[in-house]
């Protein structure tokens, strides 16, 4: 007698959907209370396509294999003192930005997908969300392990979970994920699954991973490879979600369009940190933010939305404004951190002449006209011993929580101010995109924990800068301020005593 083996597809059906059932002791609506209040209509959950057809046992096997390879490379990197082979000591600040600004959001994504993996009624979608939840948790863990090696030598790394909940600029990624996680499961899937993990993911991971490769950070590159197969699974889930929702019922279209508009804009604002990293923080540059935006959003995103047009879905609102801003945001963001370097948990520096020339070449329409004069003015002030610091706290946008440093569309010489009234209170915004999001759900955003307002209300350790930095667990004098003169620079120079560390005068 021959034992029949199940085919891959049958096996998957048995191991996932075969484990699902229609409840009878309790009403299905009571078991899945979260999947109807958002107004999304699903006629047939079985129409959900499972492109990967991965079962749990195979998942563990794959991930364990990748884990073994990753940790072997991490061990080798540590034993060979890989940190001394970076392009420059400044590079480590990219790693700090990643660990403080991105890794905690992997954890938030883990929590969010665990929630959707519990609350979506369809078994196929539930299984996919559960696996992504585990992926995200694993990404946090492997990132922490990868970066922990740098923590032995460099500042600004050890307090990342504490800082995530408190530091002013980390409220930007935190509030982004808080917003997604406090929405319903379908909005979360569009926010994180589609907008973040599909539409914008290449603008996050490609810059960090190629930046690592160009700058000798082989440990982060290896992490990137280890996460890559997960990311392609996440992308497939993201695109499946949006197609599934749009195919299920025509009433879903306006709801999905509103979420796509919102999460595109929120994602664009968040990615401004990556823009600044690419244009200012990588000692060896990969490409400019503008080039990355053109390839990954204008071209790739453009053809994606052409493909989605048959469902009636349009390009996200303000996509044209975001593309115009790709000329500006990296410069504007680095200027924010340059002048608030005393309150940042990574180091800043004045771009040298070679760097300014690179920016002039990459941004021929805008850099010489608006930004080069700013850096040159500040360089002159540095030379005179009057390094420029902003000694007041900035106005923040009520939606994205970023200092309101962005300029008026069509006029890069003037700040873009938008405001709205709600129940007698005034709220300020950096853009029409952020204002629209607030106006769509004002009761949600009036609750925002705004770092500047919280300091003034006396909730952040005290009234002075040292009080607040202590409350952030920031080691003042080591974690913050310019790279030049930092303990990071000192240790780098000890490893490279003969390196030409004299920076070219501007």
């Amino acid at each position: 007698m021959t034992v029949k083996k199940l085919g891959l597809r049958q096996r998957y059906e048995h191991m996932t959907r075969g484990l699902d059932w229609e409840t009878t002791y309790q009403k299905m609506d009571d078991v899945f209370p979260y999947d109807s209040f958002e107004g999304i209509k699903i006629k047939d959950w079985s129409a959900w396509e499972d492109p990967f057809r991965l079962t749990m046992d195979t998942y563990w096997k794959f991930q364990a294999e990748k884990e073994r390879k990753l940790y072997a490379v991490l061990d080798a990197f540590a034993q060979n003192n890989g940190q001394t082979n970076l392009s420059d000591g400044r590079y480590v600040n990219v790693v700090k930005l990643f660990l403080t600004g991105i890794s905690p959001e992997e954890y938030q994504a883990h929590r969010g997908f665990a929630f959707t993996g519990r609350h979506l009624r369809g078994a196929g979608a539930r299984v996919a969300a559960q696996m992504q939840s585990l992926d995200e948790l694993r990404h946090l863990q492997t990132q922490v392990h990868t970066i922990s090696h740098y923590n032995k030598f460099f500042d600004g790394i050890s307090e990342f979970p504490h800082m995530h909940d408190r530091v002013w600029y980390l409220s930007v990624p935190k509030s982004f994920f808080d917003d997604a996680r406090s929405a319903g499961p379908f909005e979360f899937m569009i926010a994180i699954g589609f907008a973040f993990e599909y539409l914008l993911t290449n603008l996050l991971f490609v810059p960090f991973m190629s930046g690592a490769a160009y700058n000798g950070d082989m440990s982060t590159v290896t992490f990137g490879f280890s996460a890559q197969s997960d990311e392609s699974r996440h992308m497939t889930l993201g695109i499946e979600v949006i197609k599934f929702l749009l195919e299920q019922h025509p009433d879903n279209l306006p709801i999905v369009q509103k979420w796509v508009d919102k999460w595109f804009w929120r994602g664009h604002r968040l990615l401004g940190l990556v823009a600044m990293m690419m244009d200012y923080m990588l000692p060896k540059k990969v490409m400019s933010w503008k080039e990355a935006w053109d390839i990954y959003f204008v071209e790739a995103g453009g053809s994606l939305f052409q493909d989605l047009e048959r469902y009636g879905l349009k390009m996200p609102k303000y996509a044209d404004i975001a593309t115009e801003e790709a000329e500006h945001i990296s410069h504007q963001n680095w200027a924010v951190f340059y002048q608030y370097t005393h309150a940042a948990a990574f180091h800043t520096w004045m771009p040298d002449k070679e760097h300014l020339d690179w920016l002039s070449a990459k941004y021929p329409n805008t850099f010489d006209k608006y930004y080069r004069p700013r850096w040159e003015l500040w360089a002159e002030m540095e030379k005179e011993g009057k390094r420029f610091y902003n000694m007041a706290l900035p106005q923040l946008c009520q939606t994205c929580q970023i200092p309101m440093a962005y300029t008026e569309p069509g006029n890069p010489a003037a700040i873009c101010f938008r405001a709205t009234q709600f129940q007698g209170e005034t709220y300020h915004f950096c853009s029409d995109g952020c204002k629209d999001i607030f106006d769509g759900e004002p009761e949600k955003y009036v609750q925002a924990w705004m770092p500047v307002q919280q300091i003034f209300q006396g909730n952040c350790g005290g009234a002075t800068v040292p009080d607040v930095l202590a409350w952030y667990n920031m080691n003042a004098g080591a974690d913050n301020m310019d790279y030049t003169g930092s303990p990071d620079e000192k240790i780098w120079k000890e490893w490279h005593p003969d390196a030409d560390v004299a920076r070219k005068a501007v």
Partner: protein
Amino acid sequence: MTVTAITPDYVKHIEIRDIQQNFHGNILVYVHWEEHLSFCAALAFPLPPAMPFGALVSDVIAPHYAAHPDAAKVDWAVVNWMIDGKMAAPDFGKSLAENGMHHKSLVRFWTPGLTGRAAS
């Protein structure tokens, strides 16, 4: 209610975090020096509404913008003011409140002849 929420009484559970009462008698005031983008954004200050507008200028605005090379050349008598989106001629002897300012007011000002270096 516009929030899409599972709880029908969502608004009963929310906490508006930045109401004036939370600022210990102060109002939040935003100030921005136009055409001087060295200062990356408007600056935020918690101030007593009874503070004279003149004191806002001399004790708050002037010292916080002093680092800019143009700062020493500002003639406050010829500055153009905009308060909450409207051009204004604030009375320096009167209070912020008497000049129509409230919690989270935005004061923008232009300094004729001084436009920074390429608006920086």
